[in-house]
């Protein structure tokens, strides 16, 4: 045996062994392997795409405008508070336009107000608008920054929620400027996951305004969906600084949902950012789950003061503008704990605790895309893919043997190498196998013989010219080489583009296609050559079965 031959044989052997070792964890056989194997050798294997194992692919968009809106709102009330504290006189502070605040004031306090704003809100641009009016506008750069931060925070919050929800191998990342992609493989209850992620989870404690006569005029209950109507009815009657909020009431016996309106103070006593802990407990009397929350020391102090000042009044616990419960304050509550009850199921209570712990989203998010694949479809797809692959491979293999005889067997050997190395490479990169990916493998099988066909046809031509077997093989490989490279590179270009722009399943297809093409180049130049060299090295062949 020639030295070069031995070296090439070893290389191919090594590649195949590596491929098998890497691919093994993706097969059921892996479970039967001894323990040391999993510890010392690759144990990750190929990941199945969402389309094969079932799961969800969600794209959310963070409503950055909303974040800017509430930042301006906060700034306006912050200025109001500052001016009041410093006893600077002003007539009114209100929003003007989307990012503007307008302050009307007696002319003598103009410079004082400007100073306060300049010192405390450097991101606001100040414009005089007549004698007694100031316009403050949020700089564009600042509102961009708010949007950016909102997306970052939303990403973090969603990640926290998913972590606590408990999904194996979720993928959560940002795309474009304000989109967040969430992939949850193998999820059983899609709707619950969407609800969990989508909740803004803005927790607020607000006092009810029961002294106003309007509170008594509110109906005890309205049918679900009638909120808009009620709001427009009461539009002009709602006292300054108050708002109407609704509690969702479910009739235990009929299961009918109705809404109960309350008149609440607009200003929140406390918001969710003072929360340190949220836990699910079970009320032993009614056997109903509830969520108990704890505040940090600052929050506890405020809560104690407010409850002390408002004994016998009602305080509403509000999540995302919905009242969950509105208990009467029985006494001053020290210690910084509160309970949220609301006729939860256990899962609802659990999810509520998760969103409270993970914190509120800085801005609402909208779902742009939701692709959910059930687990049974995934299995069907795998089965169909494997079946198609087997049948396709057998057809190609048979065809090659019939057409090229013994050389066809050699080409089939290359197909076999291709598939094994491709599977190993996919496992090595821990690539995601998708349904189009399986299609890619099957197509690769069809195309993998192409290089060999090119070579074989060349060899046949050389033989027709009367060359010896040895010389014909050499010439065949040599002449086909550049063509093979060219044809592979062009396919690689399209595969690379597919990879770059594709998402999910399509990316999976691009990965298998480009890996397949590269491996193909290796096996056709190395794999079959080595066999031919082996056959011709021992003795000079008179005839080649081709």
């Amino acid at each position, binding site marked *: 045996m020639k030295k070069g031959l031995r070296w090439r044989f070893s290389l191919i052997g090594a590649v195949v062994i590596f491929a098998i070792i890497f691919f093994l964890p993706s097969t059921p056989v892996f479970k039967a392997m001894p323990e040391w194997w999993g510890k010392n050798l690759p144990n990750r294997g190929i990941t199945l795409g969402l389309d094969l194992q079932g799961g969800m692919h969600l794209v959310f968009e963070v409503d950055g405008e909303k974040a800017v809106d509430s930042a301006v709102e906060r700034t306006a009330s912050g200025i109001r508070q500052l001016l009041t504290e410093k006893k600077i006189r002003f007539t009114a502070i209100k929003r003007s336009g989307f990012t503007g605040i307008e302050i009307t004031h007696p002319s003598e306090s103009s410079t004082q107000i400007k100073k306060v704003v300049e010192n405390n809100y450097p991101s606001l641009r100040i414009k005089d608008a007549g004698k007694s009016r100031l316009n403050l506008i949020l700089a564009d750069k600042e509102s961009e920054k708010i949007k950016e931060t909102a997306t970052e925070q939303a990403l973090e919050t969603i990640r926290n929620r998913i972590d606590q929800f408990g999904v194996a191998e979720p993928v959560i990342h940002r795309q474009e400027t304000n989109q967040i992609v969430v992939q949850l493989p193998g999820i059983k209850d899609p709707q619950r996951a969407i609800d969990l992620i989508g909740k803004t989870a803005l927790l607020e404690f607000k006092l009810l305004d029961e002294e106003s006569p309007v509170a008594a005029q509110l109906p005890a209950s309205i049918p679900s969906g009638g909120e808009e109507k009620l709001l427009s009815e009461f539009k002009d009657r709602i006292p300054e600084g108050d708002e109407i909020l609704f509690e969702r009431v479910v009739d235990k016996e009929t299961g009918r949902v109705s809404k109960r309106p309350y008149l609440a103070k607009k200003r929140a006593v406390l918001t969710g950012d003072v929360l340190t802990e949220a836990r699910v407990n079970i009320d032993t009397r009614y056997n109903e789950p509830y969520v108990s929350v704890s505040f940090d020391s600052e929050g506890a102090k405020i809560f104690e003061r407010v409850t002390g000042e408002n004994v016998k009044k009602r305080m509403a616990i509000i999540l995302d503008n919905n009242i969950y419960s509105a208990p009467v304050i029985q006494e001053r509550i020290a210690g910084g704990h509160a309970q949220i009850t609301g006729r939860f199921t256990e899962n609802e209570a659990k999810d509520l605790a998760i969103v409270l712990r993970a914190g509120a989203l800085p801005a609402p998010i909208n*779902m742009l895309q939701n692709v959910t694949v059930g687990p*049974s*479809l995934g299995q069907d797809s795998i089965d169909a*893919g494997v079946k*198609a692959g087997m049948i396709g491979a057998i057809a190609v293999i048979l065809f090659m043997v019939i*057409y090229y005889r013994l050389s066809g067997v050699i080409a089939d050997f290359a197909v076999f190498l291709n598939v094994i190395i491709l599977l190993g490479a996919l496992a090595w990169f821990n690539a995601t196998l998708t349904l*189009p990916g399986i299609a890619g493998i099957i197509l690769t099988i069809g195309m993998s013989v192409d290089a060999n066909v090119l070579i074989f046809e060349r060899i046949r031509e050389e033989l027709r010219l009367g060359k010896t077997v040895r010389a014909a093989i050499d010439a065949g490989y040599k002449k086909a080489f550049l*063509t093979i490279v*060219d044809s592979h590179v062009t396919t690689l270009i399209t595969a690379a583009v597919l990879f770059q722009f594709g998402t999910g399943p399509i990316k999976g297809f691009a990965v298998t*296609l480009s890996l397949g093409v590269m491996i193909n180049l290796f096996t056709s130049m190395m794999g079959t050559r080595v066999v031919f060299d082996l056959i011709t090295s021992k003795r000079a062949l008179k005839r080649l079965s081709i």
Partner: protein
Amino acid sequence: MFEIIKTPKIDFIGKRNIAFMASGIFIAIGIVALIQIARGAINLGIDFSGGTSVHLKFEKPIPMDHARKILEQSGLKDVDLQDFPAENKLLIRIKKSDIETGKVSENIVRIFSEGFSGTKFVVDSTTEIGPKIGKSLQKDALIAVAIATAGILIYIAWRFRFKFGVAATIATFHDVLFVLGVFYIMNKEINLLLITALLTIAGYSLTDTVVVFDRIRENMKLRYKEPIPLVINSSINEVLSRTIITAGTTFLAATALFFFGGEVIHDFAFAILIGIAIGTYSSIFIASPILVVWKGRLRK
């Protein structure tokens, strides 16, 4: 030796006018399809148009009329129903909904569990795509096609001559347009998977063209005294058996996908099948004749 064709001597170049005429019609249809896509007046998949699709799998056959009726009663508009009776599967599609993403599929599942209370079903898959995503996917697909084209043109122009690159690109576009045209005429859905298939076809067709071109270039150097049409014609003939065999094996693999790959991949495999056929045709009848027709320097 077992050969399909023994040393063929077919006059491919001589038949170029017939081929150009046929291909002219193909391309015209393809361009019509493109225009219709731009106008949105085509069976665009919800990947691009936005909307909802829900796959349901029932445990026993269900009457389609009833399914249609309960959907109508619920006030959902523009519902597209497709059933796969062999597996008791039903595909419900609603395009361009104005309803908030996430609500439509929920609705559909509810309508069916109420309307078919006696028949159990599982939700195989739901897909909801908001209009914004559809727009950006459309843009991405266009960019992908443009980049792929440019990359291929540059590579071939570098490896051969500019003229070869243009000819190969025209042939590739021809194939992609043809498949698009077929999908348009058959009113099949234009979706992301089809774009994937089209790019795959482009890669395949190009491979085919490059193989022929390689032989043409090689022969031009060897037989520099012969007229170019003759050299090109015999080059095509020399690689013909390779062309047919490779097309054949790839076709076999795609056929397996078409028949056994499952319904999700069915149209994809179909596109690949016709793509292989047209890609083979175009490398022989379109790409090479362009080299002959286009006067100018070919030899280096």
